[in-house]
């Protein structure tokens, strides 16, 4: 492909600009890019990448799946909407993770190599019930991974552990 400006050199820089929802493409050579003052960033900070990913998504359906209404929902606690998230790349309050759980899940998966469940430090103040809930979530995720990798022996062990945990949890719930 030839450079659209000098029509001589090969176009090595391909720019996609989206302004007011209109998509424009430009294919230029390095020399013309420099003359036009277009700096090519070799590394993009993750936040920028995230907001640009969000900005390029052509429709809510593609981004959030066919069942989501997308922008119309707003958080009753902070009034935040997905539209605002798309612009700012930060959420409005901790409840947004629940309110927008489904639409955010794909983004969270993308940002964290497919992971969607916490694994790590738990605040010391966390109640025993919540700690068990966390353990249960982790076990279920491990079970899913074991099934996917066809490790059925491990899957059976995990299934038994989950059953045991669920029984214990129910006992705790009943006693409370």
């Amino acid at each position, binding site marked *: 492909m030839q450079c659209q400006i000098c029509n001589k050199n090969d176009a090595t820089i391909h720019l996609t600009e989206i302004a007011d929802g209109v998509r424009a493409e430009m294919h230029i050579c390095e020399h013309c890019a420099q003359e036009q003052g277009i700096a090519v960033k070799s590394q993009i900070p*993750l936040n920028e990448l995230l907001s640009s990913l969000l900005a390029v998504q052509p429709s809510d359906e593609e981004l959030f799946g066919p069942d989501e209404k997308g922008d119309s929902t707003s958080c009753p606690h902070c009034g935040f909407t997905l539209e605002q998230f798309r612009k700012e790349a930060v959420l409005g309050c901790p409840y947004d993770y629940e309110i927008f759980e489904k639409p955010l899940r794909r983004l969270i998966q993308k940002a964290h190599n497919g992971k*969607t469940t916490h694994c790590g430090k738990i605040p010391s103040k966390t109640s025993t019930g919540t700690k068990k809930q966390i353990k249960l979530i982790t076990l279920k995720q491990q079970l899913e991974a074991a099934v996917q990798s066809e490790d059925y022996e491990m899957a059976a062990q995990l299934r038994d552990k989950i059953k045991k945990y669920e029984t214990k949890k129910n006992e705790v719930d009943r006693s409370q």
Partner: protein
Amino acid sequence: MKLTDLSSDINEWFSGSGPLADIVISSRIRLARNLAGYKFLNRCSTDEKSEILKKLRDVLMSLDLGDKIFYISVDKAPPLNRHFLMERHLISRHHAFGKGPRGVVIAQKEFFTAMINEEDHLRIQVLKGGLQLSKCAEQINHIDDMIEKKVSFAFSPRYGYLTACPTNLGTAIRVSVMLHLPALKITGQIEKFFNAAKDMSLAVRGLFGEGTEAAGDFYQISNQVTLGVSEDDIITEFEKSIIPEIVEYENAARSQLLSEQMDLLDDKISRAVALLRNAHLISSQEALFLLSHLRLGLNMRESMGASSPAIDTLGTLSKQSGRKGKGDGLSIATINRLFMLTLPAHLQLNYGKTLDATHRDALRAQIIRSALNQGL
């Protein structure tokens, strides 16, 4: 506590000590936390931000960290002071030039800082020289536990610690290691390092973090994935696998320069010495670039016992070069001091007033000349 008490010297983590310190400048661990019961900062009013600031400031100032701690109101600090704190890695660029009530709590020895009202309500960090991630982890975990006894953080069983940006969710940990990789750069292998880092979902940033250039061949490498992997696993991978591997590549590139490209290496070092010892105007970028080559030569002489015409010349440079110069020739500590003390805000704070770019360049050149020419 005055900022000039800090600005006249380098901080402990940049003093050239710690495991693998010739290549690994520093290890840093940062945790992001948000108070339960409050909105994230972008939805908070100024009053709410002030309330969060006061609450966290009171908690942090009451902690026993085994060192004196002080507080700086970042939004009220003059731009030069904010810039200085950023150069010192005590606050981020975002915190330095953000909006609204915000502050930072700093341990005098600079191993710990806590940014209040940055992107999240609280971002605490522990910094140490060389590769010391496990020690950083132990210390920051202890500090986090002390804070958690006094406040409750937003936490969900599924997502872990809840952060304003979903990219920090979960452990909300950012493990960053600052590396000096001049030989990989000179031998044209730095792109390989970028690509390998990208494949492993690691971020590579410049000297001052997000959005900054890799000046002076310094690179910060950090984790991006914070959810679904434990703090221990992230830290162990960095400490036992990722960083030692990069250090090995840099050392291999240094050996390659010595055995196969000595003219190229000597040219870089000799030009750096000549310019730094004679220039009368020198920009911050140029100083970082040239000092980097000097640091490379000195490290190769000290750690590898390397010898080449240019490296041997470094040994004849001032015996009293800089306050902390020890032994024969120019020391790494002196070079590290020059790196930090000639940064724009450091220069101006130590000079006692703001200076335009030309005056800064002249002052910088003068400081470097005198450090490198003394005693010759």
